[in-house]
């Protein structure tokens, strides 16, 4: 199950968290009260040039010094603080959420074309794989993920999500089967600019994981969703594909469809399947992926999970349920259901 939702304002007008909280709660039928979360873009304008690292500490006294030391080896901590939280009767605070604003020292990875991103990726992989009581669950610039185990409204109230504002939001209402009760297992998943919410189960996870790990990514979250964030990062950031083509690689057309395409189009479609066969995601899923510039929703190739799109003015919506979109935007102008593998794309207007 699981309920997912996303919205982008293409003119980058900020929206506070109140409406998405309401919308996500519309889909409690799809959750089990064991995980919910929100990702918001444009949330830290005063620190927009620094990587915002959101960390779950098992406890502060044992683990924080080690994390500080690691970060300082690779750059400068501009500012750090505990993320404010507010006690909720139905939510057990098993971790202490913290945020760092971090500036990597690009000289330390001089060989790289994108040294800052690569340092942060390296650090996220290393810290999460070591499992020393700290887990980095959000690492983008001007992006924040807020998540925990609980019902969406409890998690929202725990962080007072209405106090945050941004031009792009993702939300997730979880019905866990893999890692119930673990905060790290709640969605959204994030790496650098990429955030993902996911409903479904990726039956090709083993293939995808072994593929992505051969590029130095490490899957450490015990769930199939994180692999989507890494695949998108690889295809778009490292391999330079457009978001549309990346979706075509992850949820490609069938060979029967490719066989009857026009020659040029066929070559591109065939090449994508040959090159990225191991990145193809199988099994039932609906996914929304976002970065600073865009939001893309898509489903598996035979649409075994629901996905609805909507538009209203400059805003593009995507969700598991039409009801959730209507809860967020009662005056919605256009609501539609995309075909299997057909993406819903909302891009920032340059």
């Amino acid at each position, binding site marked *: 199950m699981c309920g997912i939702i996303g919205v982008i304002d293409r003119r980058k007008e900020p929206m506070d968290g109140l409406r998405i909280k309401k919308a996500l709660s519309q889909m409690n039928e799809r959750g089990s009260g064991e995980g919910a979360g929100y990702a918001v873009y444009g949330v830290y304008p005063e620190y927009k040039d620094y990587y915002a690292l959101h960390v779950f500490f098992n406890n502060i006294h044992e683990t924080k010094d080690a994390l500080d030391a690691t970060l300082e080896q690779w750059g400068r901590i501009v500012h750090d603080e505990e993320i404010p939280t507010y006690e909720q009767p139905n939510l057990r605070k098993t971790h202490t959420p913290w945020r760092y604003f971090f500036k990597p020292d690009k000289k330390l990875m001089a060989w790289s074309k994108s040294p800052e991103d690569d340092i942060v990726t390296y650090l996220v992989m290393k810290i999460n794989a070591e499992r020393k009581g700290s887990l980095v669950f959000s690492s983008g610039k001007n992006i924040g993920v807020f998540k925990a185990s609980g019902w969406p409204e409890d998690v929202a109230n725990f962080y007072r999500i209405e106090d945050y504002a941004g031009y792009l939001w993702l939300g997730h209402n979880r019905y866990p089967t893999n890692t119930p009760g673990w905060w790290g297992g709640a969605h959204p998943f994030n790496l650098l600019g990429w955030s993902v919410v996911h409903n479904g189960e990726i039956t090709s996870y083993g293939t995808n994981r072994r593929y992505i790990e051969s590029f130095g990514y490490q899957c450490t979250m015990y769930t199939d969703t994180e692999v989507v964030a890494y695949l998108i990062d690889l295809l778009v950031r490292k391999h330079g594909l457009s978001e549309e083509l990346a979706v075509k690689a992850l949820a490609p057309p069938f060979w029967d469809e490719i066989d009857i395409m026009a020659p040029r189009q066929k070559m591109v479609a065939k090449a994508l399947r040959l*090159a990225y066969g191991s990145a193809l995601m199988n*099994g039932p899923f609906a996914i929304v992926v976002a970065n600073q510039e865009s939001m893309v929703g898509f489903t598996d190739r*035979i649409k075994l999970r629901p996905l609805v799109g909507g538009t209203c003015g400059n805003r593009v919506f995507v969700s598991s349920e039409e009801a959730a979109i209507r809860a967020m935007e009662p005056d919605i102008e256009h609501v539609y259901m995309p075909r299997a593998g057909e993406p819903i794309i909302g891009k920032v207007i340059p």
Partner: protein
Amino acid sequence: MSIGAIPSRYRIRIDRDQCMLCERCIESCPYGVFRKNGETIHVDSRKCTACHRCIAMCPRDAISLLEHPIDYRSHPIWTREVRESIYNQARTGKIILAGMGNAQPLPAIFDRLLLDACQVTNPSIDPLREPMELRTYIGKKPSRLEIRRTPEGDLDLVTELAPNLEAETPILIAHMSYGAISLNAQKSLAMAATEVKTFMGTGEGGLHPSLYPYQDRMIVQVASGRFGVDINYLERGAAIEIKIGQGAKPGIGGHLPGEKVDADVSATRMIPVGSDAISPAPHHDIYSIEDLKQLVRGLKEATEWKKPVFVKIAAVHNVAAIAAGIARSSADAVVVDGFRGGTGAAPRVFRDQVGLPIEAAIAAVDQKLRDQGIRNEVSLIASGGIRESADVAKAIALGADAIYIGTASLVAMGCRVCGNCYRGLCPWGIATQREDLTARLDPREGSVLVSNLIHAWTLELSELMGAAGINSIESLRGNRDRLRGYMLDEGILKVLDVKPVGA
């Protein structure tokens, strides 16, 4: 002093009440088990190979066969096989020849791997109602793509794609040469490969003109003897395979006895009639990996870089590193042949004692290629001991792109795995060149049997994939999460990178 006769392996009995003296058993048996004497059929059980031809042909089901009618004193170490090998070698002073694959009673890892299926949290996919893709491309894949947007807004592929074979199933037919098997057997396989849109190997025996109509479905082999190789041969194949080694006999060459080299075999192999065709142990122009690269590129140059070139090796201890070397040689696919791989003739000591199980070899090779970031450089074809569709699914889940079946395709044509292929008297018309015997195999009928088998396995594979919630073979490939090991030790599980049952 004489050792005397060793106990007969089989006992044939004829039910005299049923027998109607039709003599079909006499006609059927090229080994001379049966003979007519007056009004009875006499039996010489000692000559029997358990090929079952007489049993299959007897209209009255009058013939029965018993294995090991005389027992040795049982002993856990001094087995029957060990004792009989010693008797044989004491008498002859020679290497013992054997046919088919490894006959040691070692457990098959495939049998201790279990496949997965969906329940509740994700739906299984019904292949009768939903598309199921088994199309398999074999060859080099780009590891990333350059795609340009034209001024008109169309997408244009800038990256050049290397030639790939396109098969509609990941099941290919292994290399078995004309000479080792009959022309009718090769025709059956070639027609079947064409029918189910897969590929077959020619083996190191050249390409007989009567197979030219099927050449687009044939992979021509270049082995150390270079039999039958010329530019015509290379140009006709859909792909070229360099055979370095074979799972049944890693490290040694091949030997086709002169008796099997008749006029037609001689012309196809380009060797004199009646001469032994001996393939050297190494290629004498390949003493190192850089020499292999030269041959790969030489073959590509000769065929204008239009065909994929495969390299086949036996699964030996260092198989992963060797495969990684091959992946850097411009080769398009690595074929790894496990120690259960079959053969017409191999020294028994090699067949039973040298090499690795294919399951471990695939796992090691796939992982090594991924570790080095060169998995897309080559396809990985697994062969040697694949007996059913589940083995295919497991081999692919461990990391293979495709598999070869050899023995299984012969069994489909009637072979009873008697293991006497090297004697050239195959009563099923498969591993023989004797005209009266090869006439027993009608290529039309043979091709239906083989294409039925591949079709049936492909259907079963679709069902297994659908049950696992997978609708494309790419998503099964290397998907070791969908395997669990049952009664495998921790060391093997680590090599296979597979969790134990329950985990």
